[in-house]
């Protein structure tokens, strides 16, 4: 359950951001989830809303808004821009698991559909980012 580790990281970062912004209570957190990491959103949200509040009561009642972002790659060799479906099939379970754990390992398994090269940039939709923390006494982007 790797999703728990990611949720734990998000929760810690959100509480730290809230503290740094002088908030006394966190009310709403916006999280962006990139397509490439292929996260089980239900497990991720369950960890945030049902498991982690038992560990840290400051998370109780916090609303988590999830924004899903499609992945976009940009090839450094030929300049092509492409999405996940164009970069290779999803049927190899080992590739899918490796990319799920470390999205950069997509360079080992995916290829530019135009030139066939592995030297591409992940332009968007990589993994989990904390977009916004709102609460009593402040707001932090």
């Amino acid at each position, binding site marked *: *359950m*790797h999703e*728990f*580790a*990611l949720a*734990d*990281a*998000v929760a*810690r*970062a*959100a509480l*730290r*951001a809230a503290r740094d912004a002088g908030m006394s209570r966190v009310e709403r957190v916006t999280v962006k989830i990139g397509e490439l990491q292929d996260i089980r959103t239900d497990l991720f949200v369950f960890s945030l809303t049902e498991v982690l509040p038992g560990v840290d009561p400051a998370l109780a009642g916090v609303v988590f808004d999830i924004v899903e972002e499609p992945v976009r790659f940009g090839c450094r060799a030929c300049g092509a821009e492409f999405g996940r479906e164009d970069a290779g099939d999803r049927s190899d379970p*080992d590739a899918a*698991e*490796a990319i799920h*754990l*470390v*999205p*950069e*390992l997509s*360079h*080992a*398994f995916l290829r530019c559909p135009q030139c066939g090269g*592995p*030297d591409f940039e*992940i332009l968007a939709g*990589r*993994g*989990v*980012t*904390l*977009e916004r923390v709102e609460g009593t006494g402040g707001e932090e982007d």
Partner: protein
Amino acid sequence: MDPRTAAVSERLSGVSRVAAVAGSKGGIGKSVVATTMALALAGRGRSVGLFDLDFTSPSAHVILGTRAGFPAEEFGIEPHEAAGIRVMSVAFLLGDSPAPLRGVDATNALLELLAITNWGDLDVLVLDMPPGLGDTSLDVIRLIPRLEFVLVGTSSRLVISSVERAAALLRELRVPVAGIVENMSRSGGDGVEALAGRHGFPFLGSVPFDPALEEAVGDVGRLREGAVFGAVDGVVARLGW
């Protein structure tokens, strides 16, 4: 905001000491020193982890002779156990596939693995560093608490000149250096020992060039019987870990 940095210190909270085994040239035996150091520490009863940070050319798993597959996932990912050491390597995720990573990708891979790997309670986590003073070295210095370097050099003037730069940088950055090891020694460690002296770092000893090492790679039992292991065990004794 990247949430992973908030998780790194927590994931390493049970680790008493982190030792980055590094040298600024490739092919000087950093991985052999790092791996045998982990074995020697384990042999002395320490709880030890070994994290191969050479993402493009991982080799610690080859030295240990383990081809373990994907790590188990349990509130994060679990390092594999090999020869009494907890081991993490991208090789467990990649198999034999090459991973061409630019610096920013290596940084992200490092951060991701640091944020999700459950090292548990360790006396020492040994980092097998990639060659050079690039992104991974700077990221390790930036991200990892309780870090100290063990520098590896050889008597080659090319290597000494390169390790000299590494030593100077670490001094400038005020990063602790536990000492310098001469590896592949054929005639004593004058050059490396002198380098250690110039920077005020402990000289930890010489590890001999052993033609039989190649045959022992992948066989921990033979590694433990070899001259390299014996010398590295002496290094560990001098470190006092």
